């Protein structure tokens, strides 16, 4: 099995699939870094003063005043207290919150990439994994070896999981190294708010607490990895079903992009939440961002992604081991 997985990885690398993905990352990350830099500069200009410590101090005073008010509900107060803790940490450690370091960039980049950018990259890797063997005709050589068909397919799937993991690692490394040139490499211990729970239409904040940023990044990468695997598994199935690389890539791109668009266009259409590509933004639950479609929560999204993936992998294996090779 190790030999078979090695074969698949060799083909993926020699086909320069991997190089393409790394090149895309190497071109896009500097652009995003620059965009972030411009945003920071604009904010500084708007505030009118470059003395961020004075601003931060003023914000802390404002927040503390809010705490004394009796009209504010208790859960809000907890939230405010945490914000004050966060701001005090910035002040004490001499961190400018509007000019964050590379780890903050990595976190934000992953939070944004998980919905569209990462899925697209995964599709590039996965879409031609099986279909290219059909398109080249090499499937005929591959399936006339003394190796069971399910093993051939499993080796491809394992190679896909490995390469997705590697791509995420490279994404993390590249975004850290490149953005650090501008923002500096500090900030791993920055406190970040986490622990939001989505219940019905409400955001429950009583479990919210501060965690160090490095921990948050690990969580975010774990969730992003899960959602990338789901995309990878479904593209893998499409790659088995469609014997043409271009079609397979087209189908997957259309599905991923419409998932992203539909969330924006039709948030009131409730049954949409059962569609797999609506559930890709797992990191949003971590960040406590408002969820557009009601009834969605982290366990719900994890379950939807898992169910779709399992069904896809079953279909892929059944079809691949039974189908006549006619082309």
């Amino acid at each position: 099995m190790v030999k078979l997985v090695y074969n698949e990885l060799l083909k993926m690398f020699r086909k320069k699939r991997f190089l393409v993905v790394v090149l895309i990352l190497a071109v896009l990350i500097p652009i995003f870094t620059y965009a972030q830099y411009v945003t920071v500069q604009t904010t500084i200009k708007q505030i009118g003063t470059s003395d961020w410590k004075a601003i931060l101090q003023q914000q802390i005073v404002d927040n503390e005043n809010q705490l004394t008010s009796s009209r504010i509900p208790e859960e809000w107060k907890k939230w405010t207290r945490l914000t004050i803790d966060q701001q005090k940490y910035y002040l004490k450690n001499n961190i400018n919150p509007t000019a964050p370091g590379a780890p903050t960039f990595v976190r934000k980049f992953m939070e944004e990439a998980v919905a569209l950018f990462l899925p697209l990259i995964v599709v590039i890797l996965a879409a031609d994994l099986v279909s290219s063997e059909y398109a080249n005709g090499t499937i005929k050589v591959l399936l006339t070896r003394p190796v069971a068909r399910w093993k051939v397919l499993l080796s491809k799937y394992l190679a896909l999981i490995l390469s997705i993991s590697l791509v995420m690692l490279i994404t993390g490394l590249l975004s850290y190294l490149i953005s650090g040139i501008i923002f500096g490499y500090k900030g791993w211990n920055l406190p970040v708010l986490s622990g939001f729970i989505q219940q019905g239409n409400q955001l429950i904040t009583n479990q919210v607490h501060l965690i160090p940023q490095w921990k948050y990044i690990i969580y975010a990468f774990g969730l992003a990895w899960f959602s990338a695997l789901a995309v990878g598994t479904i593209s893998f199935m499409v790659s088995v079903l469609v014997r043409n690389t271009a079609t397979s890539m087209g189908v997957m791109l259309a599905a991923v992009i419409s998932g992203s668009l539909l969330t924006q266009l039709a948030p009131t259409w409730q049954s949409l939440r059962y569609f797999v590509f609506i559930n890709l933004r797992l990191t949003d639950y971590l960040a406590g961002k408002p969820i557009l479609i009601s009834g969605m929560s982290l366990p719900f999204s994890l379950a939807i992604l898992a169910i779709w993936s399992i069904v896809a992998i079953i279909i892929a294996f059944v079809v691949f081991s039974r189908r006549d090779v006619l082309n």
Partner: protein
Amino acid sequence: MKPVLSVEHLTKKIGGRTIVDDISFTVNPGEIFGFLGPNGAGKTTTIRMLVGLIKPTSGSIVIGGHNLQTHFLEAIKQVGCIVENPELYPYLTGRENLEHFARMIDNIDDDRIDEVVRLVELEKRIDETVKTYSLGMRQRLGIAQALLGNPQLLILDEPTNGLDPAGIRELRAFIRRLAQEQSISIFISSHILYEIQLLCERVAIISHGKVLKTAAVSQLVGDDSKVEWSLNPIPQAIKQFSELPYIRNVEQLGKESVMVHMPVEKIAETNQLLLASNIQVSAIRPMNQTLEDIFLEMTGGEGIG
């Protein structure tokens, strides 16, 4: 002698159409077996069933004593094949391609890879990527790939397709050498009769999914040959021919020549008889009867190719 490959009542239906209809044949150890039929007769479908790419609707395939449907791995270990074109990974080198497929078979070491490379004479170019290879080289690399696992049976689907005449001659010599020196049985499909006749000992003729006949090539071609006579005057000559018992199928071709079926060794004798009857003979052209004639006879004039 136990056959290397035995096919019994093999049938394949796709979407209600019968592509391969109840065919049976056997291939013996060390023999070159031809599988002859026009395009669309069901040759490729049959070959795909032989190597497990397509599941038969009914019938059985036994390779080296193992049933392909029930014991796929044991059966397919005995087989090396090229189905249609020699398809390999163009972005890998020749050696990487061989290593790739060697990893899918047990106990293939680098020595074996070197050995097959030498056998197909690709030593010089083996470390270049396959996309730079000519079709003939790809064909040879395909054969090297098929030979990696020391197969007892080599299955080649239209191996000369797209090769130039020199390449075809080279391949033919190579196939003969394989059968003689390595005592591998070789199963070759082709729509070119001449090819099969030159290479094969036995042949199965397939048309519209059915095997019309399986026999030794020598037996099929037989002793009679076609002989074309250029004569004058024709009517007397035809009369003379019809009186000879060993001459069949007398047929007039144009003003001055006649085609007959007869044994080659009787040509001289016949010539003397004609001269004795004052018939002028200006040319005698014996033609070897080919599988083509037999094919046309059997299918009732259906063209080939």
